């Protein structure tokens, strides 16, 4: 008899090795004969390269080779963009692994030194002499799209990489007919993903066999293999990509980077294994960043608060080159979500993807959806203020009513299931909303600036049906596969193509297998992250691993169960239809004492002494799962803040999250995901944001200046949940990796603006650092 572990918060099996420092990351790997690469990066945001002299560097102690763009040109293909959104006039300028003639951001690779030790490689970098001709730089994505702005790429006039539109209903008519319209300009700062482990790559080229092995900090090793093939020309079946322990990614380890291509190039030239690991400072320059939106938005409504239209013009900064998935983030994952949790009949949005002289921008936890949710939820609050209504009332008035199997929104998506009103009720109850408003009234009377912020959200995750992926220009599929293999002793290996890196699926996938066929959860081992050991899969991002890869594990395990039934029937001399299953035991209906355990079956299938006619030996199954639709988790969050009227400092006092991510396999892991997600979503509201100077130099180059969310800046996050199963998912799960990040940005932003409302302040650019808030208060007090 096994205990039911499905839906229980068992501890993460990953944690002992992670917490005690016994996990082995890419940089921990040392191969015989391995040498070390260090990359020289541009100090200019925009410059022509006049000349590069590597001769002095080549003569430094321990230096084996120095390569520049002249060496990699022709040997490495340009880095491809893998999300070519259609109908957007997308430009894909060349992205060489090493810049040869021109650098376009501080951090662009200019040369690589390979030496016997990492220290020697770093020392030699200082001896490379590069003569630059500096050019004007542009960072603000709206400015970059204007006539006369410095141009990054000849083939992208006005730096516009794409212009993408979303439309449903007739927004212009809605605005023309509206009782009331409100508008705002919202900026979402550029964010650094800050995984604990910086990126790293080890390339081992074996010329004799023509095989390339790449250890890489990747969220998606199968995509990395595919793109390594594209960039290096080594055929796909001769490439093995291994993502060992990966210490967080938050989206920044999805892209295929110049650095792994350069590392592979060095190994192929030199015939020895080469390791490259970025420093934290390098991570701040060369690892993709998130957000960087300027959103000009407006909402139309009736005088009693029914939303009739939404219009947006968005300038999305892309950085200097198109990163792997970049174009899909501010479009498909953003514009299609403009309806949020509401019934909005008329929507139109235009999104300009704009090159600027910054680090390339790509998916960062939430990817496109925090940017969408923030603009919707902010506008709802602005509308409520305009109408003199309680913001919660406006939300209630517009929420999509409960539905269990499909609801179409005008942007063209079909949400799977939702009960948005229920999560809103739950969060208001948990917070004691009306008491909070009374408390606020009193605080205001005392001159204190207390604010309450509420936000609902719907997110699109479980990416996604492959047919849709193709239709929206994603250059790959979005299905997942799994192999479930029972060994003679009844222990199980599960091989998955997805690549968890901190989310806990080694635990939750084992819970799935345990639930489906009744093996002990500790008898199941999940294997991932190695293209030679695991079946094809598209990786871990977009809150898709449990939803898609978990479904593949479920279906494969169900095949095991079907075969086990047939084998049990044979062994019990009964018909398969008469076999029942309960708790890991197969028995003839009515006589549970006479049974075969899953372990009995596994042993027999593996020794195959007594198999039914025509049945193959072994107990192993694989499944490929291509989801019929996305999943749409949702929720409602609430925050309470107090702003210090003398200093502008913001005290986040309470945070309550109510999420509905469908069926939960492990509620403790769900809660952990919400905690981390909330912290990362609060970051840009209160602390985080890359700052560049006029010339494009990043001024937030280290953690001394770039402020990450920390435990002491956050209250105890109160987490609750509801359960509305996904109708189309084999387990009813939806995904929760990004929920917290999506909801918390607008929730806390709304709370601060609510606190400042008595002063007449309606907007401040994020992050809301004390000086900005203080200045806004000074201006307001001075009648400005």
């Amino acid at each position, binding site marked *: 008899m096994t205990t039911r572990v499905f839906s229980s918060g068992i501890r993460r099996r990953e944690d002992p090795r992670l917490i005690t420092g016994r996990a082995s990351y890419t940089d921990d790997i040392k191969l015989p004969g391995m040498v070390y690469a260090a990359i020289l990066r541009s100090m200019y945001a925009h410059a022509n390269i006049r000349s590069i002299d590597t001769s002095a560097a080549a003569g430094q102690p321990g230096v084996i080779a120095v390569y520049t763009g002249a060496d990699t040109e022709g040997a490495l293909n340009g880095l491809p963009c893998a999300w070519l959104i259609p109908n957007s006039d997308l430009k894909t300028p060349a992205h060489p692994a090493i810049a040869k003639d021109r650098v376009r951001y501080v951090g662009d690779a200019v040369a690589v030194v390979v030496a016997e030790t990492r220290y020697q490689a770093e020392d030699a970098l200082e001896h490379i002499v590069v003569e630059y001709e500096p050019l004007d730089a542009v960072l603000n994505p709206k400015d970059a799209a204007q006539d006369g702005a410095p141009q990054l790429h000849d083939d992208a006039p006005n730096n516009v990489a794409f212009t993408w539109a979303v439309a449903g209903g007739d927004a212009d008519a809605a605005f023309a007919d509206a009782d009331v319209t409100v508008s705002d300009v919202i900026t979402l700062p550029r964010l650094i993903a800050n995984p604990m482990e910086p990126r790293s790559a080890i390339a081992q080229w074996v010329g004799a066999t023509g095989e390339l092995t790449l250890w890489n900090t990747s969220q998606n090793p199968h995509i990395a293999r595919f793109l390594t093939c594209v960039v290096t020309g080594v055929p796909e079946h001769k490439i093995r990509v291994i993502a060992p322990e990966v210490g967080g990614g938050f989206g920044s380890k999805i892209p295929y980077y110049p650095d792994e291509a350069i590392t592979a190039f060095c190994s192929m030239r030199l015939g020895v294994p080469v390791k490259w690991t970025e420093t934290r400072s390098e991570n701040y320059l060369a690892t993709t960043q998130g957000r960087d939106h300027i959103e000009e938005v407006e909402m139309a409504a009736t005088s009693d608060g029914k939303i009739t239209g939404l219009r947006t013009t968005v300038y999305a900064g892309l950085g200097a080159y198109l990163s792997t998935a970049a174009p899909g983030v501010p479009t498909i994952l953003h514009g299609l979500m403009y309806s949020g949790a509401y019934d909005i009949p008329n929507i139109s949005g235009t999104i300009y993807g704009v090159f600027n002289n910054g680090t390339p921008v790509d998916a960062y936890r939430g990817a496109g959806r925090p940017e969408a949710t923030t603009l919707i939820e902010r506008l709802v609050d602005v509308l409520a203020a305009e109408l003199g209504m309680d913001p919660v009332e406006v939300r209630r008035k517009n929420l999509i009513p409960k539905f269990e199997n499909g609801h179409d929104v005008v942007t063209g998506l079909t949400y799977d299931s939702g009960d948005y009103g229920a999560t809103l009720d739950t969060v208001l109850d948990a917070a004691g909303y009306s008491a909070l408003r009374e408390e606020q009234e009193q605080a205001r009377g005392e001159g204190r600036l207390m604010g309450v912020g509420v936000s609902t959200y719907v997110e699109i995750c479980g990416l996604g049906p492959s047919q849709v992926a193709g239709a929206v220009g994603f250059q790959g599929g979005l299905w997942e596969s799994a192999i479930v293999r029972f060994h003679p002793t009844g222990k199980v290996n599960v091989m998955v193509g997805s690549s968890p890196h901190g989310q806990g699926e080694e635990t939750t996938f084992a819970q799935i297998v345990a639930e489906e066929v009744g093996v002990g959860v500790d008898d199941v081992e999940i294997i991932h992250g190695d293209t030679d050991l695991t079946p094809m899969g598209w990786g871990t991002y977009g809150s898709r691993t449990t939803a898609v890869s978990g479904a593949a594990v479920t279906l494969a395990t169900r095949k095991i169960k079907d075969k086990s039934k047939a084998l049990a029937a044979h062994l019990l001399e009964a018909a398969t239809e008469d076999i029942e299953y309960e708790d890991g035991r197969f028995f003839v209906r009515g006589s549970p004492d006479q049974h075969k355990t899953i372990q009995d079956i596994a042993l027999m299938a593996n020794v195959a002494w007594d198999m039914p006619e025509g049945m193959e030996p072994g107990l192993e199954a694989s499944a490929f799962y291509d989801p019929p639709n996305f999943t749409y988790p949702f929720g409602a969050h609430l925050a309470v803040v107090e702003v210090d009227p003398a200093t502008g*400092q913001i005290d986040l006092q309470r945070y309550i999250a109510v999420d509905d991510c469908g069926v939960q396999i492990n509620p403790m892991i769900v809660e952990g995901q919400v905690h981390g997600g909330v912290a990362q979503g609060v970051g840009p509201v209160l602390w985080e944001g890359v700052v560049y100077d006029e010339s494009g130099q990043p001024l937030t180059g280290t953690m001394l200046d770039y402020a990450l969310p920390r435990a002491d800046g956050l209250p105890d996050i109160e987490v609750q949940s509801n359960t509305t199963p996904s109708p189309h998912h084999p387990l009813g799960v939806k995904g929760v990796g990004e929920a917290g990040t999506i909801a918390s940005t607008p929730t806390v932003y709304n709370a601060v603006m609510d606190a400042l409302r008595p002063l007449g302040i309606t907007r401040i650019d994020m992050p809301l*650092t004390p*000086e900005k808030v203080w200045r806004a208060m000074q201006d307001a007090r001075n009648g400005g």
Partner: protein
Amino acid sequence: MYPANTTYHRAGSVAEAVQLLADNEGAKVLAGGHSLIPAMKLRLAAPQALVDIGHIAALRGISLEGGSLVIGALTNFATIASSELVQANAPVLAEATGVVGDPAVRNRGTIGGNVSHGDPASDPPTALTALGATYNVSGPGGERSIAASDFPTGLLENALQDNEILTGVSVPALAPGSGSAYVKFPHPASRYAVVGVAAIVASQGGSCSSASVVIGGVETTPTRASSVEAALVGSDLGNDALDAAAAAVAGDFTGDPMSDIFASDEYRRAMAAVYLRRALGIAASRAG
């Protein structure tokens, strides 16, 4: 994050450390390493040699000698903050060292290293200057002491001469009847002080008999708020008096202002007045 080549020397005594500094061109003292090592990793500092004084036991410890606290240069912040001797005789220093960085920094960073490095956003120098501390120095020319207020000579510059080592700080015990406070506006990223204020007031018969107020973070070296002190002395330390005294601080900023992307000089000055008022309120409530 890979420092340039350097040689490492471990000193067994102060005299040996002074000699090692003299013998090694371009050498730097290594104490807790919490300012020097990060600078080396960023290659902002590239000393040709390191003289590690971290193993000189004589430089560690806290004692009360003739009415003064004597704190060895190598004593870390956590030790100072939790020391009963310091809490009893110079509570403002216990407060200031207790809010340096985070626990890891407080367990490694040393008072001598902090003072010698002289980051304008440091906490301890503000408190030490307000306390009228002196710094004890040993070098090729023997031993001498330097008043805390004379020690910094500019941004990250100080009165130490070539091959001199700071061996400790001497802090006169606070007079009975004094109240003090250290309040800090920490930078959200670095945790250094955007503004840090140390205030000490003494009260006799309901009137302020002396005041010492120093502000860190606003200028390149700690700012003595003389106008504030003047306004306090003789006052009743009531709310109005403290308001008026705090408002006087504007005239005390005469040095080189600090400014960065997080806080402009104007904002720092404004916050100095706010934090100053808060520090005065706490200090006054503890006096008498």
